[in-house]
């Protein structure tokens, strides 16, 4: 087995350096995460539009929602997102807009719009009162459903109510898109002059996960029994084998909480073994196993 290095919580916390960057191991414990531009409108008495570079945390697909995490010392954005009925826009900059991202990573004086400094063009959104970033290929228009103060950050749960896209990106293939936007925040490092430099990444390689018969026809989320039915329908299982497996499954469910039952132990082994044979495509082994257990 590969040699492992273990770290305690104190050791993880100590990876934070004084210069504002972390030890490389700290970044290796984190996944690079999509970095978008968060647009908010200043609440009165403020009178501007504010942009920040921020990372996302996925939440739900339907409704489509995610959280954005704002440092509590960023009072302007905390105020904007905490207001009742708060709205925001999440815009995805491209790999060619890294200076713009760096500029929006700084906090301009209240009322000054970072988009103007970064030469990013804003445009009217259709579903929220906060502008979108026309210079960015993709914008998500969101409402804030809930905010939670958590340690050092305000966690804002935002629900997407609309979106827009630069039509020149519409027909690009997935592999092309992911190498253009979004960029993922990777780390902050000290450059040769001692300045903090942010590094971002783009995705490159894409791999398909296994599909039927090694997985359900639906892909995911379907019931185990339907998968077995699909295998029977496509002749990977005979009718007798199908009945046998479903019988095990029924009995397993009945005995699930009977932890002392010897039959439960046997069923667990059988269901584990046949599942392993199927996902690994060991069909000959599967058939001989089922035949042997049926005889037993």
């Amino acid at each position: 087995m590969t040699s492992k290095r273990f770290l305690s919580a104190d050791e993880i916390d100590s990876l934070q350096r004084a210069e504002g960057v972390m030890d490389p191991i700290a970044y290796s414990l984190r996944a690079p995460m999509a970095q978008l531009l968060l647009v908010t409108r200043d609440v009165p008495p403020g009178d501007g539009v504010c942009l920040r570079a921020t990372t996302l945390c996925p939440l739900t697909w339907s409704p489509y929602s995610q959280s954005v995490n704002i440092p509590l010392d960023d009072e302007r954005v905390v105020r904007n997102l905490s207001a009742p009925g708060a709205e925001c826009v999440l815009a995805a900059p491209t790999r060619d807009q890294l200076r713009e991202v760096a500029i929006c990573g700084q906090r301009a004086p209240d009322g000054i719009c970072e988009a103007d400094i970064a030469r990013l063009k804003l445009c009217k959104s259709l579903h929220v009162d906060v502008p979108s970033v026309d210079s960015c290929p993709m914008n998500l228009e969101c409402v804030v459903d809930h905010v939670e103060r958590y340690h050092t950050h305000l966690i804002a749960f935002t629900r997407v109510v609309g979106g827009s896209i630069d039509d020149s990106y519409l027909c690009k293939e997935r592999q092309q898109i992911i190498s253009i936007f979004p960029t993922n925040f990777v780390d902050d490092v000290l450059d040769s002059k001692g300045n903090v430099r942010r590094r971002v990444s783009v995705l490159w390689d894409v791999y398909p996960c296994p599909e039927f018969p090694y997985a359900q026809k639906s892909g995911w989320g379907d019931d185990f029994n339907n998968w077995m039915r699909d295998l029977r329908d496509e002749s990977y299982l005979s009718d007798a084998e199908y009945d046998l497996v479903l019988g095990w499954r029924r009995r397993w469910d009945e005995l699930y909480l009977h932890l002392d039952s010897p039959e439960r132990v046997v069923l667990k082994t059988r269901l584990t073994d046949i599942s392993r044979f199927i996902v690994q495509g060991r069909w000959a082994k599967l058939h001989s196993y089922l035949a042997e257990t049926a005889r037993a």
Partner: protein
Amino acid sequence: MGRLFYSIEELLGKPTFPGIKDPTLVYYHFRPARPANLLVTRDPDTGELNLASGTYGPLTDRPYTICLHLHSSPHSARNLSAIGTECVVALPGRDLIRETWIPALSLPRGISEAEVAELALLPSKVVSIPGIAECPVNLECRVEFLKELYGRTIAVFLRVVGASIDEEMVARDRLGVIAQYPTYEVDDATNVWGGSIERLGVNGELLDCPSFPACAKRGFSTDTAAWLADLRAEGYLSDPEFTRLNGWIRDYAAASGESRAALREQLTDALRLAAWEEWDHLHAHLGAARGE
């Protein structure tokens, strides 16, 4: 170039466009890829381990916390329903595509997805739940906060109380690390049965953002005052120019009406010229404002 706007109903309905064959292509343009994880939990009723595939996101750095989003019904949501419950979040690499997918299959409750995927368990040091030996990073976690979302999903805030990393990854440079793990849920292609084929991606390129003088020496999340001080310290701004710019900021904060609008434009222009490193124009702008 034009911009197409969609309502959320149109987006979730997976909009198509003439000439586009893949019915999910446009939809996934609006869904940034998110890091995949394997989640190890323990069934409170039987003590059996459960392994689930999912995605997660970051919350805070210090303490190190992360957020999972779990559908209310599957096993792992039930297993993490109490504050203080322990779990391990493992980050799979590009060599574990099949193994990452297997726990997403709906195996009967109690059947070990790790055994089916032929993944080895790694004893943890801080929590009672094991990690996954083949994963380069394992995060040992405790549940700190739970919130039900829209009746179907639970957001689970986890505090990382321990971690392990492959020694081999410690020695690699950053690109070598991020090109290996984690994998990302990129999209679902459509298979011949109308179902989905999940596709996982991996980072492949590392890009530098501009640093000082385009922004403050301390980088992101710094305010304008610190940046201007850096510019003066390194000779990009003279002392009078620095004083003038700070004066504009003070005056702008106190101004209202037309004078505020004029100061906003004047100040924005100056900051823009500095951020784009157009020094001659900046000096001229600051000089012109003084009447030079």
